[in-house]
């Protein structure tokens, strides 16, 4: 919910190449990567549905595409090294790319006629790149915070 409000109120001020970052996709990518496919799909469904209800257009389009994206990203949980900071960045880039293409495809079936090439070049690719960078940054902070908490607990626990 906070992510959605942030996206609506704050992120338009931080447009790059004419697009806003998709915070929900960034969070979904990292969450699915850490928690696995079922939880990734569940969060994708919730996030997507929330966004659809907020936008009140083609309700279900984001829910479907984000659910599938969360599931697919979650499959990488055990296959990729979670200590590698680059992984979430690359995953977020690919996840946004995939979700964008699915959005265009399913959108066309549902009646959302956005030109394919323009959609891919002017929206999907810039957002994917933006999200990839944010995920890289966000995951670095997350890892740093997790390491700090672990160290604090170790110091605090009786030997």
């Amino acid at each position, binding site marked *: 919910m906070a992510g*959605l409000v942030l*996206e*609506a*109120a704050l*992120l*338009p*001020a931080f*447009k*790059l*190449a*004419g*697009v*806003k970052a*998709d915070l929900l996709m960034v969070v979904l990518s990292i969450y699915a990567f850490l928690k696995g496919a079922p939880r990734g799909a569940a969060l994708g469904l919730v996030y997507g549905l929330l*966004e659809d209800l*907020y*936008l*009140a*257009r083609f309700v279900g389009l*984001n829910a479907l595409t984000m659910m599938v994206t969360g599931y697919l990203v979650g499959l990488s949980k055990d296959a990729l090294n979670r200590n590698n900071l680059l992984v979430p960045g690359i995953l977020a880039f690919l996840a946004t790319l995939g979700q964008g293409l699915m*959005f265009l495809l399913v*959108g066309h079936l549902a009646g*959302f*006629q*956005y*030109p394919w*090439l*323009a*959609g891919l*070049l*002017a*929206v999907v690719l810039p*957002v994917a790149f933006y999200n990839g960078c944010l995920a890289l940054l966000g995951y670095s902070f997350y890892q740093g915070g997790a390491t700090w908490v672990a160290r604090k607990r170790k110091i605090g626990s009786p030997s």
Partner: protein
Amino acid sequence: MSRRGRKLVAPLLLLLAVAGLYAVMRWTALERGRLSLLEGSLRDALAPAERGITLVVNRAGGWLATIKDYRRLQAENQALKEEVAALRAANVQMEEYRQENSRLRNLLNYTEVNRQAFDFAVAPVIGRNPSNWYHTLTLGLGSKAGLKKDQVVVTAQGVVGRIIAVTPTTAEVLLILDRDGAVGGMVQVNRTPGIIEGSPDYRGYLQMVHIARDAPVMENQVVVTSGLGGIFPRGLLLGTVVRVLPEPDGLMKRAIIEPAVDFDRLEELLVITRVKGGMGDGVSGAGTPGNGRPGSGSSPAAGL
């Protein structure tokens, strides 16, 4: 010397000393241009020491005063810091009020100029669409304030869009940048009509599509609403043509239009609640085209 004589020496010496000292006293009481050698030497000899001691005493006095006043100074410092912070906040607030005043003054001027043609309601923008696919924004007024679906939203610069959904306290505005927000438009100077919609490849720009190849559409021409379609009144400013491109089929062409409105900087908008008529071209800021700065997307003018 007799015993009596010796007894007189001391008082005599004393008397002489008193007289001598009195004479010196009288002599030195007068203003003198030069001191005696003894006085001057003594003064010169003592001057550095005096200077050092005075310095130390002054410094120590200052330090002592500082120590003595430490608590008071600390409290004063804290109070001053708070005052500076409060003044800074007030300054920021004043700047906000100043800018808001300037924006509202512009809107007021616009409403005064167009009083014959429209009734307006001023609505604040409270949110923008979080998606990159749709171009909408949310106003902080809704049906309670008399806003309805399909009412047109403008600024002093030009057309923003139309209301597509209302709740009692909010209204959703579909921007003319949206693919579904197409508007009937025309080139003001030669009345060439066309459909104006958001450009999918030049993000942040509009495009007039399906223009006949030989139509006299050129760069720097102003584009206004045509009034066709029944929602947007005629003559509202849309933007300025910045590029004309051939369509892939080679038979038609399209014009890329820089919107008059800067869609990323909208804070208060005017909703046209009633059209009275009497609207002509050239109203609605047509004299100031190109105020919108879509620059965040790819610029069609870049290659010119």
